[in-house]
């Protein structure tokens, strides 16, 4: 019936409670949705809209801005091979060719078993370690053909499960804010004091300039 699991539903409620406005929880909830399914479906967006009290169109508008929210299914492991300058000079194209051969899919494709999605990516800011790639945004440096094969074998065998969770999971251990410290929904007119960081600045005389 509903997209979120019972557990994630109560997590969603907890997250919403942290903010003075429900809408502020939209991006955190998109992460929860992506962690649950590996991608963000329309069904998930409709449910998030309901939870944060807005329209699905606004959730789509936000979700589609972020390239890392995937709106179509991706494999358990999203392999992004950098194709920008330094990596290109250090053999990224050859690495990509090898990866396509090994996984049997073109860049952008997903293996039939749903384990790997191969993608070509822009600079990942690891130019000193070219050619580099990311698996679910976890770096692998100076990757050659053998290293790639080893990586794929390890991932398939589950040897890297501790380090690399399935796509969408941002962290295994989630930070929880105790209910007492959650801000909760506050009507704007109930806020009379300036935020702490502003009042502190005003107190220092820094805010008057």
């Amino acid at each position, binding site marked *: 019936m509903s997209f979120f699991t019972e557990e994630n539903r109560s997590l969603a409620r907890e997250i919403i409670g942290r903010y003075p406005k429900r809408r502020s929880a939209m991006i955190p909830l998109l992460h929860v949705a992506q962690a649950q399914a590996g991608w963000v479906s329309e069904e998930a967006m409709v449910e998030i809209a309901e939870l944060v009290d807005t329209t699905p169109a606004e959730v789509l*508008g936000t979700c589609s801005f972020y390239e890392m929210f995937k709106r179509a299914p991706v494999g358990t492991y999203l392999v992004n091979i950098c194709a920008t300058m330094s990596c290109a000079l250090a053999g990224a194209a050859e690495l990509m060719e090898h990866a396509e051969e090994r996984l049997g899919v073109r860049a952008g494709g997903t293996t039939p078993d749903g384990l790997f999605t191969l993608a070509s990516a822009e600079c990942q800011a690891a130019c000193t370690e070219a050619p580099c790639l990311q698996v679910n945004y976890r770096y692998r440096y100076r990757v050659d053909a053998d290293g790639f094969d080893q990586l794929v074998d390890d991932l398939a065998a589950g040897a890297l499960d501790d380090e690399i969770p399935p796509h969408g999971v941002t962290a295994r251990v989630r930070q929880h804010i105790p209910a007492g410290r959650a801000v909760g929904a506050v009507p704007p007119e109930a806020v009379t004091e300036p935020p702490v960081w502003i009042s502190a600045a005003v107190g220092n005389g820094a805010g008057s300039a």
Partner: protein
Amino acid sequence: MSDATAAETAPGTVEVTINGVAIDAQPGELVIAAADRAGVHIPRFCYHERMSPVGMCRMCLVEIDTGRGPQLQPSCMVPVSPQMVVDTTSERTRRAQEGVLELLLINHPLDCPVCDKGGECPLQDQTMAYGPGESRFVEEKRHFPKPIPISDLVHLDRERCILCDRCTRFADEVAGDPLIDFTERGNETQVLTFPGEPFSSYFSGNTVQICPVGALTASPYRFKARPWDLVETESTCTTCSVGCRIAAQSSRNELVRYLGVDIDPVNHGWLCDKGRFAFGSVGSPDRVTTPLQARAPSGAASDIADAEPLRRFQPTDWASALGAVAAAVKAARPGAIAVLGGARGTNEDAYAWSKLARTVLRTDHVDAQLGDGLPAELTVGLPAATIDEACSADTTLLVCGDLREELPVLHLRLRGAARAGTTRLVEIAPTTTGLTRNAVRSEQCRGGEAASVLRNLLDGDDPLAGELASGSVVVVLGRSSVSESAEAAAEVAAVISARVPHARFLVAARRGNVRGALDMGLAPGMLPGRALSASPPQELAAAWGELPGERGHDATAILAAAASGEIDVLFLLGADPLTDFPDSMLARLGVSGAGTVVAVDSFVSQSAAEADIVLPAAVFGEKSGTTTNLEGRVSAVGELVTAPGSARADWMIAAELAVLCGGDLGFLSVDEITAEIAAVCATHASAIGPDLAADGVVTSGAAFEPELPPEHVAPARDAYGLRLVCNRKLYDGGVTVSQTPALAPLAADTVMRVHPVDLERVGVESGTEVEVHSDRGALRLPIVADAGIARGNVVVLFPSPHIDVGALIDVTAPVTDVRIETRGDGVSR
């Protein structure tokens, strides 16, 4: 220097220099707005004076010097500051404008010859005025599938879009329906709806009007006309009683488009989609174009009427039709003539019929409301407030139907005021409404019990009592349901007046010109100029002569009298009691029991189909005159197209009929009537002349103080039953919607809505068809759960397309309680 400037500057203003001329700007005013007021045009696409600035399009870049040297800055984002120097024509400004236009045109298709916006397109015009004249871009432009429908009424062409954020901002900020948004932000940015969730806002047409390119087009106008072929007149929308100012446009004697005109006191340029697209019903092929006479007496041939309403009638000419009417009038017993309706016409129409009824037909049985409004004395006599006052009162109390469904642009104004914090909305309603989110407080009540809820709040120790006592209060008062008696709404006025004597009222009358009709005396015991017949004003008594002595019947009493054979001639002046009167059994008995039924109508409505004579009436756009909105604001309506066939204005029919009946109304043109109204009605003395254009004239005051009904205890609840609430939808079963091709498919479905807990008590799944019984009748309808309905209520749309909800309502009962019955297993279908 600065001292000297300060001395010259008017207090509370900021002196800035625009193109070498010093002007006084308002503090906080944006440079572009100050320039507009000073008559300096800065080109723009995204800036719109009724929405917050976003600085999206960069077209309004001008050189602004705030003491640090001239800088190119977007004038829509920079507020004025003292000694600011603005140059809108400098070389750098000009080059910036050229650059922005070259950039905007990179992906904009040059399909102007087939674009509906061509000829009135800000992008086209500003490219001509400020553009570089050539482009350095030779690559392929971006392509998208050509227009995709984003709702039933609006089409989107993404190739033409320049991403100015006007439509999306409007949907979010003004309409409160953020169903369109920028998606795929980046170099693929495009405006889109969520898949499967169309932009079905009641205000979607406004996005078409404010789109600065041809990206958004409205399906009723697509490829209908070119702007330079249009004939235009400024007018006032009469679809509901808000009275939005519009520019009506026609092509080849056919209305093709209405545009909102921005007037400050009423609509701020916005229109609802029903008003915007209602012109479709004016050009409908189903209009009555010639007088019709029934072949057989009414009632005798109703089986034919059911099959093919028009077959009952035979077309005739005006002389025979009016002759027959005059003969029926002359043969009628004294006091046996009644006039129902008149809310659809102009003030002049209403005045003419009011005068005809009193001075020629010698009857006071007139009522412009069909048992669905407040008592007429209250509507015209309560201390009045304007829309602006409602938007700036300390507290605005809403005790009325859902304004989004009934008076959409009033909803927009109040929503905007609540968001801007200029007023606090407090709502008492049987369901959540469009304004519930914006209200600081929303009290739900059972149908018909708003007065008791209010009394408990004000007499108890609730903080609301203090808030109302200490600040200005405007009450938006209306009938939240026609299944409760009008006394329930009148009692609300009594409860408030007794406890908050300084409260003023904005009566949420629904029908187009119902306020004007009541002001012109189309109600029993009332006379033009908000006077009572018991004490007629001198000017009027002199002009009208002797008046019928006794106070006449209202709509309910007229129908009851007709049902018992006491009415010989019943005029239906654009009124369709069989559809619109709440109690459909009484309506049916009344219409069939009346001697001769004369329908003055533009369509063969359900009631007109039962008439003996149908006289074709001209409608909005086909006649000029004045109209009155719910504030009492009188403004002009314009004539733009010719009425079909021999249809004519209601006042002409009245004047002609007067002569045939041996009287004379004393006027032969609309202007003469307008002048006579101004002469005999003290309230309308200023409602004449050129002031009626644009903002119109607010006529205020009444010649009497209305008597408020006594307060009484709310009727006991039937513990096992549910209270029927007949709410309104913008797209209902009425003739405006059903005769407008663009709107007819949007008419709301008829379902019963109850609170989920109540549905559980009924014991069926949401969506199951059940039987609903009242003391009066029974219906079969699907029932669905809706958490927005207060416990104990069951909500049904009125008037419903295809379903006779009025069969449940007894208009003499204060409220209507119903029982829901399921057929055994609960899966009946």
